[in-house]
């Protein structure tokens, strides 16, 4: 199967995978009537699309062979798809947590250790739990009709396919067109990371004493300290603005809740008065 697939041009491969993914999503999205045939056909199309994406990824470079990257990317993508096709919103949230774990794995493979952990802590630890609380507060018993029927599954799957097709085609062109994004000279990058914008300047050793492996990531040395230095050095104003934004969101949420309760009470009183008259 791989042999036949490898003879296709990458563009054809990506187009086929995107089409299969869209058809599979369309079959899997909730449309009222549950049909086992549509479900299994959708799952099969999804598997075909995934295989196509993996082969296309290997054509774009060899990373498809890196088992860790492949595994975490598959976890992220498959559970992301399950997030949007599951009927029950609680299962949706839990699939989203699994997708977050996959994304955190991708970030770790990309060398962003702090961001991988922060994704788990902030998203899965705080935001997702907030979602689950709201679900517990607001979920009616059983599956609601609006969870079992969705808006325009065909049109949305086509829209997603068009977007994904455009994006993946431009990624493919990126790989063929080397002049647009020549890889930065590694020595220059390492040098600039060492000298520029370092908050840990006093601890830095001369570059000559650090033995660099050939494929070292210039971002990987002392990552958290230097990320903090960058964040609170060049981006200090943005950090302050983000703090103000968090405070405003906190106060705004509380204000909306209290004002909303008052308005609801007012509405109820009006309705009661109207009923009595």
């Amino acid at each position: 199967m791989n042999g036949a697939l490898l003879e296709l041009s990458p563009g054809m491969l990506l187009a086929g995978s995107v089409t299969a993914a869209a058809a599979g999503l369309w079959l899997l999205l909730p449309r009222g009537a549950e049909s086992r045939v549509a479900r299994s056909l959708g799952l099969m199309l999804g598997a075909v699309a995934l295989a196509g994406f993996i082969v296309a990824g290997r054509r774009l470079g060899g990373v498809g062979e890196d088992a860790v990257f492949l595994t975490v990317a598959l976890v992220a993508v498959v559970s992301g798809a399950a997030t949007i096709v599951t009927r029950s919103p609680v299962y949706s949230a839990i699939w989203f947590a699994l997708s977050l774990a996959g994304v955190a794995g991708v970030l770790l493979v990309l060398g962003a250790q702090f961001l991988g952990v922060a994704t788990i802590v902030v998203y899965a630890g705080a935001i997702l739990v907030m979602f689950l609380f709201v679900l517990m507060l607001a979920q009616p018993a059983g599956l609601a009709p609006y969870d079992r029927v969705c808006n325009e599954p065909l049109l949305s799957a086509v829209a997603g396919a068009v977007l994904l097709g455009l994006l993946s085609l431009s990624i493919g062109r990126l790989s063929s067109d080397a002049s647009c994004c020549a890889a930065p000279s590694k020595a220059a990058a390492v040098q600039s990371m060492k000298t520029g914008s370092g908050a840990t300047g006093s601890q830095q050793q001369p570059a000559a004493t650090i033995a660099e492996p050939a494929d070292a990531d210039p971002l990987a040395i002392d990552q958290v300290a230097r990320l903090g230095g960058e964040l609170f050095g060049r981006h200090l104003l943005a950090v302050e603005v983000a703090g103000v934004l968090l405070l405003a969101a906190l106060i705004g949420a509380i204000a909306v809740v209290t004002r909303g309760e008052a308005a609801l009470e007012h509405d109820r009183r009006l309705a009661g008065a109207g009923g009595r008259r």
Partner: protein
Amino acid sequence: MTPLLAAGSTALLHNALLVGAILFALGLVGILARRNLIVMFLSAELMLQGISVSLVAWSRYHGDWGGHVLVIFVLTVAACEAAVALVFVLQAFARTGRLDAAAWQALREATLPRAVDHALPASDAVPPRWPRLARAGVEPPTDEDASLEREHV
């Protein structure tokens, strides 16, 4: 040839960009198709995840902190957005009793047609089948005095 996971590796960049694009497109489909307000927000968060992956991939490729810093701000804004949006969702639920986006379709333009639900299959009426358990054990004798004297449960 550069090693696969090296910093300036275009292969890793392209594959990570592909993963980010797929996550973004999945989130788009979810936000367009689903009607549950909370699932729509989850889809928006999925789109943010795709953006984060792309940003970190570019950051690694260029050996530059910009993508990392942007992702940190994306996390911050996502936290704010989730707090405020979930308050609105709760208010909407308190007013309509549903988490349905179509419950607010009275706010649409006057020229747009009304969204009509598909008919749901009648199979809902069938009660769920519970597993049947074998009888096991002996019922313990109940002490009626003790059950009456209990102060609290």
